């Protein structure tokens, strides 16, 4: 057994926080809608995930729920999906925020959004992302700054997605969140100021020892040598959810793995991908 050091006492990272609670009855109605109404989910942002992150739009600039690639959208309209989800409409109306885009996101068992930054392709105006968890489980959590944060159902959560972060649902069942991208205005600032620090759902990840990383790298190399490249890459990318890893280190490990196997093209490909994922292009 290897020994791992534990980071300093927990504080919730500044980039995430639990905001106001939502009435339990409204949560139950929204959950019912989310689990029964949506069909034809879309898998988009394929470079950022391993295939199990599905979305549909509720507010966008085309009204098409399958149009899910976000862009600046100052006057969004409700999609045909939102019209079938009155409880979700009720919540969005009640918050009174200036929405840019609103999506329903489903993360299946065994699915990941890899370490990345968001909003890099959008104009430089202030905006914030809110999450409204509707269905979750103990193996579904967000990681940023070396801390895992389980966004519990029953509250609105804020997230600053311009810092490196990733999301996983290790074992299921499905996780479903509303994702509200909002332009900053007085209402949003008032909403955010009303938040409270709630570290109950947060837990620091252990710092990996050199032995831990060597073992993981050896396993990944073993997989790649047998021809299981994707499993090797996934195994290293998943370290972001198990250990407190410095920014981009999981990508560096993949680069190193391929370099050690003298697969220079693959090493270059992952070096490039690291820059894309972390918004360094």
């Amino acid at each position, binding site marked *: 057994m290897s020994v791992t050091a534990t980071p300093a006492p927990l504080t919730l990272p500044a980039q995430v926080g639990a905001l106001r609670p939502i009435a339990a009855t409204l949560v139950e109605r929204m959950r019912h809608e989310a689990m029964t109404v949506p069909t034809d989910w879309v898998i988009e942002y394929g470079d950022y995930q391993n295939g199990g992150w599905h979305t549909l739009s509720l507010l966008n600039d085309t009204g098409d729920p399958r149009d899910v690639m976000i862009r600046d959208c100052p006057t969004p309209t409700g999609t045909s999906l939102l019209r079938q989800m009155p409880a979700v409409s009720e919540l969005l109306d009640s918050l009174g925020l200036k929405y840019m885009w609103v999506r329903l996101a489903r993360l299946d*068992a065994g699915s990941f959004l890899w370490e990345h930054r968001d909003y890099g392709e959008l104009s430089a105006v202030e905006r914030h992302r809110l999450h409204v968890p509707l269905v979750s489980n*103990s193996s579904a959590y967000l990681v940023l700054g070396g801390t895992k944060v389980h966004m519990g159902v029953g509250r609105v959560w804020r997230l600053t997605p311009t810092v490196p972060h990733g999301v996983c649902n*290790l*074992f299921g069942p499905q996780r479903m969140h509303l994702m509200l991208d909002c332009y900053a205005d007085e209402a949003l600032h008032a909403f955010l100021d009303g938040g409270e620090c709630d570290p109950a759902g947060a837990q620091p990840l252990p710092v990996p020892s050199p032995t831990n990383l060597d073992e993981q790298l050896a396993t990944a190399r073993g997989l790649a040598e047998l*021809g299981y490249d994707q*499993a090797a890459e996934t*195994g290293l990318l*998943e370290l972001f959810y198990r250990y407190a890893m410095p920014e981009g280190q999981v990508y560096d490990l993949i680069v190193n793995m391929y370099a050690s196997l003298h697969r220079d093209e693959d090493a270059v490909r992952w070096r490039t991908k690291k820059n894309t994922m972390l918004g360094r292009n």
Partner: protein
Amino acid sequence: MTTALLETVAAANRPRQFGLLEKAVDVLSHSRALHALYVRGSLAAGTADRLSDLDFIVAVDDPEFASFVRVADALMAAELGAILPGWHDTIVARMGGLGYVYLVAYEGKLHQIDLYLVPASRLDTVLARTTAMPVYLAEDVAARAHSHVDWFINSTLERPHTPAELLTEVLVLGQMIRKRVSRGQRFIAYAEVFALNTAVKNLIKAALAPGSTFYGWYQLPEEIGATPIGRACLADLDALIRGPAVPTGDDLSTAIGRALAVARRAAPDAVTAFGPAIDAYRHYLDLP
């Protein structure tokens, strides 16, 4: 036209594990070390139902066999959604390889995938002892014997199991018994309940008396019951073995709950490490 419509109906009603079967074959066959992949059990016999597990024979190039076994858990977790490491199957017949059982989350249900890993040079021996159908055959490969394989398989078979491995065994057996209960397979359920109780006993011994020289169920009160924690574990084990030999669904829920209570007491690190996986397991088995 009628045929096409019927095919559409058939596709809509295809058992969920057939999608998992396709995915598993696609994943496993990516390796140049894989010589052949067969399904056996009910899939090969034509008796599969919607609860059937996927039962594979995986023939691996002999020189790569040990490397393959070492990364099998990582492969199954990363590519097929295994929620726990593979249980080293002690029920499967010894046919010259190593058996592992995985619990895999797929399309909202928990499925069982059995891998019988065999050196390619021994594939014929295995095929002679079981009904199997090929689902992947590598082209232009010849089996290469490797002297290291025997030592590797024997040392793996003889290695004592850790508490974490025995906890995995308990959870896998729980899933297997649930299937027997659903199907009304009372005799197999009886055998697997005994296996589950034995796994719990073995877990207690591995955690609290790892150097035990006593055989099986002998000397448990003297060896384990000498301390309060040991007595508490034995009290739970006693409650387990007094449960129905052929359980109902509720009986099984109670038994798994007791087994987990024993594990929390005797091997808390293993339970903590598997915590979210156990939460998911409870969800899929609809346990309280």
